[in-house]
């Protein structure tokens, strides 16, 4: 955190000053470790073993927060009799379907009821009658004594019972005493009087089992009562100014703004079905119809009417996974013709960069928008394979457009930070030359498309022609008014266009329009709430008048949980939101994340519908039953509980189960994306992990051009321990070549005791550290770490595994004729070790188009 979010880290230092214990778990000793109380060196890729052992510690030693767990989580729920755990099946859960190569989650459900997940994969509920789903939630069976062997608590307890300190030592390389110290510190600092927080970044997400890493932390935090309370929570430290915003208003294939799912082919064939599949009969998602109808009104204006399902049929349908790696492999196979790359640099920042560039070579056209031509813009001219002569520019047919973009100081707009806080930046100066904002580019592209299609009578072109696109423009460059766009995102009434104050004002009858329901209220009263800059010294410590947080300016989600079931603060020290009996409403330092007037003793009656099903002790209002899930009865593709699986390329056999890797992982079985052996590949004996440095930013487009940053970290390097340096003859300051079967890179050697060999299962394991900022363009250059990484992904979110993989390292520079699997002679695909990665039922997952061997419904195959 000190490395990548130094200013956010000031609050950690502030906490430390006030006596907090800072624990840093990282394969490397970093600038965060330097000021932490405890540094835990961990084998990259083994976090579930570590976190799972904390869960076990909490339960075995009875350190969990009983009143919180019983009332606010699903600990008491009884699970289907058909459920079988990884304990029973050597690393698999019940429901594995050999033929489709994926789980059928039916046996994971609660007994006698099916619930809709608040997030995740709702399509898993396909084919069943929808109308009663969730409505029967009150029929769910409970055991509040938590002793029934089929209740969630007992299932969790049994599942994690084998995650012992000995396993931590064996799987993570962490000494037992060190583990115990961490577990005890965490328990001692949780409860009524104290809370603990977890912070993570892509060190947790970039794994084939990344979602379950975070799930394990969630289980710990729920058992300890650390969610929805001040000083608690799990904080995702996001790496870009508006990466949270680009998830909320998603430039992501599977969602519409506000986490509404994209229509799915063959299921969501019309609005009725779409709503039926996606609304929940209970909990907050019962409001779903209001959000989609208001979105369609915002997009298609008067053309969206009750008669035409509000223009629902203008939306395209997804059929399976269209995520980044799926798209790029389709690109490499010639399916994708045109590609917009805006403020991103996949030729450096994405996995298996040689395959990324191979994809670009097959395009008909590519548009890149950035400050200066990036490696992505220059892929046809100066890429390693071009310099090497494997491919020649005159053989690359891609037409490339590079547009210079405006900086944040040259345009109005809002960023959403890592805490869901929208903050407005004002235009200070005009952009130079032909530099323009991305708002300008998009708006004028839309205008031009409307003009090109204006005479069309084709049904397919109606959405473009009916698109509500009348934004006021400002100045000689006809810059669209960003605040007018924000007004649409906020939402307004129809036809009089009064700004909405909150999402609770949305309707499903077409009388409101709203571009993103969770952002509704950000322009309450017609005032840009995101531009509020009231100094922190002039307001409460929660600082509610700085910017605006979604939803409803809530700074802390699920904050009903900061009070006990009776609505009183758990302790004076940790008071935040509480029930005011005199006023008959919830009050406190923040906007209550609860129905403001619902008393703690409210219980829904028989036949209650929608949000009336939420009782006074249901703080997790987005969940169908208002409780946080220790166990996920639905929504995840790789199991209801986190399970330790090894990375795709490991140095160890899974010490816990016969199933080596996540059975549901996504693999790309292609000659341009080969993998190493599952473990112990003698050619690639070391563990590698990639990361950022304080002094640079992601793929370098915003840092490798700045001399002030370059002098601080001037070129690509690789961090190794003195022991590994000795073993491989590496000299500090000299050169090393790091390779995988996919490619090889050279880097300066930094020998440091901050990298420590780990002792596991009686063997010494070496880890290699690779910052990933560099490549061949800019004022500071070096080889890109992502030349080494693979297309391999977590099944739930399609995020790659680049935080743990195996490599070779040798002294000296790489040969001039550098090898890459995706250019030049292709490597042989090696699947001979399938038996090592998977148990027999998993081994025969079908391989689809573009080499994708997916653990999730791959509907693109239905064609």
């Amino acid at each position, binding site marked *: 955190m000190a490395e990548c979010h130094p200013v956010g880290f000031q609050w950690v230092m502030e906490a430390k000053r006030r006596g907090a214990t800072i624990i840093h778990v990282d394969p490397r000793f970093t600038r965060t470790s330097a000021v932490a109380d405890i540094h835990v060196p961990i084998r990259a890729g083994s976090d579930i073993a570590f976190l799972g052992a904390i869960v076990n510690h909490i339960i075995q030693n009875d350190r969990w927060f009983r009143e919180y767990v019983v009332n606010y989580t699903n600990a008491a729920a009884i699970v289907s009799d058909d459920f079988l755990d990884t304990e029973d099946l050597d690393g698999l859960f019940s429901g594995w379907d050999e033929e489709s190569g994926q789980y059928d989650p039916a046996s994971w459900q609660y007994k006698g009821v099916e619930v809709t997940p608040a997030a995740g994969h709702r399509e898993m509920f396909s084919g069943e009658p929808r109308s009663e789903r969730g409505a029967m939630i009150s029929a769910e069976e409970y055991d509040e004594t938590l002793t029934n062997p089929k209740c969630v608590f007992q299932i969790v307890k049994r599942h994690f019972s084998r995650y012992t300190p000995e396993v931590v030592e064996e799987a993570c390389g962490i000494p037992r005493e060190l583990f115990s110290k961490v577990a005890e510190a965490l328990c001692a600092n949780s409860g009524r009087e104290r809370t603990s927080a977890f912070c993570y970044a892509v060190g947790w997400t970039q794994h084939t089992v990344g979602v379950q890493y975070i799930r394990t932390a969630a289980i710990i935090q729920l058992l300890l009562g650390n969610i929805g309370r001040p000083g608690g929570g799990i904080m995702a430290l996001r790496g870009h100014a508006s990466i949270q915003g680009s998830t909320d208003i998603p430039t992501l294939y599977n969602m519409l703004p506000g986490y509404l799912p994209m229509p799915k082919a063959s299921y969501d064939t019309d609005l009725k079905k779409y709503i039926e599949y996606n609304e929940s009969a209970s909990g907050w998602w019962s409001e779903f119809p209001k959000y989609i109808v208001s979105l369609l009104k915002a997009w298609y204006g008067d053309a969206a009417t009750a008669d035409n399902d509000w223009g629902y049929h203008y939306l395209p349908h997804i059929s399976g996974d269209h995520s980044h790696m799926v798209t790029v492999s389709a690109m490499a196979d010639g399916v994708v*013709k045109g590609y917009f*790359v805006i403020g991103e640099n*996949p030729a450096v920042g994405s996995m298996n960069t040689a395959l990324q560039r191979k994809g670009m070579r097959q395009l008909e056209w590519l548009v890149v928008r950035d400050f200066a031509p990036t490696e992505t813009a220059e892929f046809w001219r100066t890429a390693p394979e071009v310099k090497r002569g494997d491919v020649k520019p005159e053989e690359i047919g891609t037409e490339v457009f590079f547009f210079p973009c405006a900086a944040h100081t040259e345009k109005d707009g809002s960023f959403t930070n890592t805490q869901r806080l929208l903050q407005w930046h004002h235009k200070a100066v005009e952009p130079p030359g032909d530099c323009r904002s991305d708002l300008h580019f998009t708006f004028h592209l839309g205008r031009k498309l409307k003009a090109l299609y204006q005479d069309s009578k084709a049904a397919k072109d109606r959405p473009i022609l009916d698109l509500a696109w009348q934004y006021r423009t400002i100045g000689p460059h006809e810059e669209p008014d960003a605040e007018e766009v924000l007004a649409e995102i906020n939402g307004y009434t129809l036809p009089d266009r009064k700004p909405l104050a909150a999402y609770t004002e949305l309707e499903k009858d077409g009388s409101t329009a709203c571009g993103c329901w969770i952002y509704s209220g950000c322009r309450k009263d017609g005032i840009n709430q995101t531009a509020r800059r009231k100094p922190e010294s002039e307001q409460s410590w929660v600082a509610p008048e700085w910017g605006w947080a979604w939803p409803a300016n809530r700074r802390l989600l699920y904050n009903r949980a900061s009070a006990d079931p009776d609505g009183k603060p758990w302790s004076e020290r940790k008071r935040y939101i509480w029930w005011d009996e005199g006023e008959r409403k919830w009050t406190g330092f923040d906007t209550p994340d609860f129905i403001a007037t619902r008393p703690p003793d409210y219980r829904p009656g028989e036949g209650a519908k929608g949000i009336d099903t939420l009782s006074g002790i249901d703080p997790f209002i987005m969940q169908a039953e208002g409780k946080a899930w220790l166990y996920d009865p639905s929504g995840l593709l790789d199991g209801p509980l986190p399970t330790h699986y090894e990375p795709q390329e490991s140095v160890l056999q899974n010490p816990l189960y016969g199933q080596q890797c996540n059975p549901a992982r996504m693999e790309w079985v292609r000659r341009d994306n080969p993998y190493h052996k599952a473990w112990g590949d003698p050619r690639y004996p070391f563990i590698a992990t990639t990361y950022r440095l304080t002094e640079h930013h992601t793929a370098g487009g915003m840092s490798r051009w700045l001399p002030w940053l370059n002098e601080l970290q001037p070129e690509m390097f690789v961090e190794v321990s003195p022991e590994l340096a000795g073993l491989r003859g590496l000299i500090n300051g000299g050169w090393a070549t790091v390779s995988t079967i996919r490619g090889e890179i050279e880097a300066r050697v930094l020998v440091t005791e901050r990298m420590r060999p780990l002792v596991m299962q009686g063997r010494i394991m070496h880890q290699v550290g690779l910052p990933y900022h560099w490549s061949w363009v800019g004022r500071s250059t070096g080889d890109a770490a992502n030349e080494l990484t693979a297309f391999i992904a977590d099944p739930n979110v399609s995020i790659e595994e680049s935080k743990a993989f195996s490599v070779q390292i040798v002294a000296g520079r790489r040969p001039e004729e550098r090898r890459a699997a995706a250019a030049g002679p292709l490597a042989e695909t090696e699947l001979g070790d399938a038996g090592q990665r998977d148990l027999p039922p998993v081994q025969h997952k079908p391989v689809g188009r573009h080499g994708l061997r997916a653990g999730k419904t791959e509907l693109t195959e239905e064609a």
Partner: protein
Amino acid sequence: MADKRLAERIPLLRQFTNLDALGLGESAWSRHTENLSARTAGADRVVGSICPYCGVGCGQEVFVKDGKILDIEGDYASPISRGCLCPKGAATTQLVTGTHRLQKVLYRPPYGKEWEEIPLERAMDLVAARVKKTRDETWEEEHQKGHPLRRTLGIAHLGGATLDNEENYLLKKLYTSMGMVQVENQARI
């Protein structure tokens, strides 16, 4: 006050009038030193902004004079950052005013060996034409089983994490209405 002015000009006299016996202090100040002040003091405007790098969202103040950026610093008022910036944030002035920034559109024709500069408006027209052509050629109206698809898999997008919410909103709105589904950004990575 002629004497006073004389005393100000002659260093030795200044030493006496300023009680600066060793002549290491004010009596040795040059006119430049006497007039020294922070360049931001002369700013026409101070514009509220937010750091464009990571997701912490530190407050920035942009000092502007004559339509040019003089300086970018942390904003003390921010409850997130309290005036601080990290090395990247502290380098924001260099990011936005640096010589690395290209100001012309570059175009590389198919099989071309070098970039060409082309006018912005022409580039926009070309891109719109490419979009239309690819969209029309790769349109999938419905699946062979009869359910609707109404999309193109011929065009894809990557990017958004560094963009404003308003920009992402318009991108998603336009792309979706064009029938594009392969819209992705750094949040997936």
